[in-house]
């Protein structure tokens, strides 16, 4: 757009703002008389005029060669490359920044970050089931609960530690996922959603009412993780040594959160890497093909049952691990943490981030959790604002924050 056209465009918006804001903010009721305050609508209109000009200049700037690459990356359109979303060194920088966060974040915000990362893990797990395999699962929270309770119950009755609980609960949740998978093999869409919703509620009610084993609504304590056999609490349990006694340093109450954060971050990075590979592997392609057309899949020699069950099991295992981290971070589990609202929130993370897009899911998990905390100011309207933000998001970016990238191959004639 030329400069004259831009000016005209900006002037049009400024004029419109002036017209609207004149009756709205130009007259002020002062006692029984109306005073005219011209400067306020004028400021507003001027602001809009300048803002429009700036926005257009920025759009113009993004068209220029050095910045076009950036704009390319911001677009949600499918791009024809095999280039990874971010080069290796950018991943390094991102991870380093994330790893240094505990140094300057307060305990409160560190806990928010832990929760955000747990949601990112859960989102990546649900993304396999919903985004890739196209199986709408509204009861995903059940696997989260299985993981969390698996850790709490395991430590209480079997003496499981955090590190043994991770693979144990992943296996346990995967078993639950397979068990759920069997009856819903022939279902799709709405029917599947309802059955999984029921499954989620069944697990929650079992936990709530099995008072003798699970403690019912009172919940169960979950121990803090240990680091190389050293406990991170102020006073160690029987036979244990606390970290600060062993190293002869003063006790830092933050240590538990910091350790969980770092382990979680490492796990998330590993998971991100693995899910990225999985998407480009035969199993990932089969998941997506199953989402697109089950009958065609069967005609191509894909055993749709094992493929479907593997998606359920894989998603559930990741959910279970998320649950272990949750229990370890909270130090306590009870059934109110595993309501349908949690399932909906995890699904929101996946849909908002972009179905099938791992990067999008992680970003969405961070955005949703941080937004949730920032909106604490508006206590009563928090969910309302949250919902509106989602609606706007979905209109603005129907395929999610960062939509999924397809794998493109550089096929030349001399391949």
């Amino acid at each position, binding site marked *: 757009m030329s400069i004259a056209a831009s000016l005209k465009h900006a002037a049009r918006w400024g004029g419109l703002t002036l017209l609207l804001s004149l009756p709205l903010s130009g007259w002020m009721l002062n006692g029984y008389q109306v005073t005219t305050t011209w400067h306020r609508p004028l400021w507003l209109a001027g602001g809009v005029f300048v803002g429009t000009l700036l926005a257009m200049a920025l759009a113009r700037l993004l068209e220029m060669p050095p910045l076009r690459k950036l704009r390319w990356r911001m677009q949600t359109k499918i791009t024809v490359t095999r280039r990874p979303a971010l080069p290796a060194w950018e991943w390094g920088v991102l991870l380093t920044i994330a790893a240094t966060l505990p140094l300057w974040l307060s305990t409160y915000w560190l806990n928010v970050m832990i929760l955000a990362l747990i949601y990112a893990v859960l989102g990546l797990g649900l993304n396999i089931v919903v985004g890739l395999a196209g199986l709408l699962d509204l009861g995903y929270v059940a696997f989260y609960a299985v993981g969390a309770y698996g850790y709490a119950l395991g430590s209480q009755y079997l003496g499981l530690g955090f590190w043994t609980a991770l693979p144990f609960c992943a296996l346990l949740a995967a078993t639950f996922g397979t068990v759920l998978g069997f009856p819903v093999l022939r279902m799709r869409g709405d029917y599947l959603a309802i059955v999984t919703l029921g499954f989620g509620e069944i697990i929650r009610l079992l936990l709530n009412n099995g008072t003798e084993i699970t403690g019912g609504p009172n919940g169960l304590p979950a121990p803090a993780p240990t680091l190389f056999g050293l406990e991170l609490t102020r006073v160690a349990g029987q036979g244990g040594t606390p970290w600060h006694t062993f190293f002869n340093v003063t006790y830092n109450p933050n240590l538990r959160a910091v350790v969980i954060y770092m382990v979680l971050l490492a796990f998330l990075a590993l998971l991100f890497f693995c899910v990225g590979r999985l998407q480009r592997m035969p199993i990932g392609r089969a998941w997506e093909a199953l989402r697109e057309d089950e009958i065609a899949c069967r*005609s191509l020699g894909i055993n749709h*049952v094992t493929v479907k069950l593997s998606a359920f099991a894989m998603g559930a295992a990741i959910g279970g691990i998320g649950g272990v981290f949750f229990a370890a971070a909270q130090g306590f589990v009870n059934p109110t943490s595993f309501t349908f609202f949690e399932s909906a929130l995890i699904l929101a993370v996946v849909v908002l981030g972009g179905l099938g897009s791992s990067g999008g899911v992680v970003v969405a998990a961070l955005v949703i959790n941080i937004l949730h905390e920032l909106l604490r100011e508006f206590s009563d309207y928090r969910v309302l604002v949250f919902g509106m933000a989602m609606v706007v998001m979905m209109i603005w970016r129907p395929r999610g924050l960062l939509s999924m990238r397809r794998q493109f191959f550089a096929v030349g004639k001399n391949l």
Partner: protein
Amino acid sequence: MTPLLTVRDLSMHFGGVAALQGVTFTVARGAITAIIGPNGAGKTTVFNCLTGFYAAAAGVVRLQREEGEIDLMRAVHPTLQPRDYLNPRALARQAYGWMTGGTHKVVRAGVARTFQNVRLFRDMTVLENLLVAQHRLVERRLWAGILRTREYLAAEAAALDRAVAWLELFGMFEDANRLAGELPYGQQRRLEIIRALCTDPVLLCLDEPAAGLNPRETQALSRMILRLRDHHDLTILLIEHDMNLVMNISDHVVVLDHGEVIASGTPAAMQGHPAVLEAYLGVAEPVDGASGGGLREEVVPVSSLPPVPPKPRPPLIIDPSVADIEACPP
């Protein structure tokens, strides 16, 4: 020629409706066999039974391979013999077959198929569609793929090569990275055939491959099918309504009507076969035959009609100032 596929007494019914009644035919190795018949004759049902999507009520489907004979019906839908009720392996196999439906075993045996309505993975690229088809040929172990072992990479590269080779052969090389859903219809049909080929079959079943194609595309398709038969050692079984295509390329024609084989033989023999004409046109014999039933239409031979005088047409005048002659296609 030796038969590749033998179908004997295939029967199938949906509730009380008999869809197939004792269908028997053979598909010769290295030949093109066409199944024709009016709509609702049971052609697609035959395909669905062959490829394991339906469990036929009775019948035998045998595939002759170099390794030996494969009973497709038994492989896909295993039936328990009385002595199997005490055999845990047979019971487990039965349960597994009951759950999975077993269509993938047909592909493993070497039978690939396409569908009447195109069933592509629309949100995936052309190459990804072809890679999915090679699922049973690539390295599927989880750790191999995540760690990208040498075997895994070699298998993936080989799969890509195979896919690209078929694309090249069908003239779709340039579309390798496009989404399958955004291809024009003719190319989607072609891609579906390529995808079936990527499963490395010996028998290719095409369900109405020419439906919705224009005459030129149909020509290209028939050339392609002939080429697959002659140079790629494939046996082709196809369902088709386009009689030109069937008569031009097939070696053997099986005619179905109301779930029964009413005739089979060479295309030339089928053209004048009374049963075939009756099924298609409702007459027993081609011209002025003495029809038996009272409901048959009276068919008047074209030559006996009086000639229609040509209508006088207004002369076609092109005003060069109005018409854009340059823009018209030749």
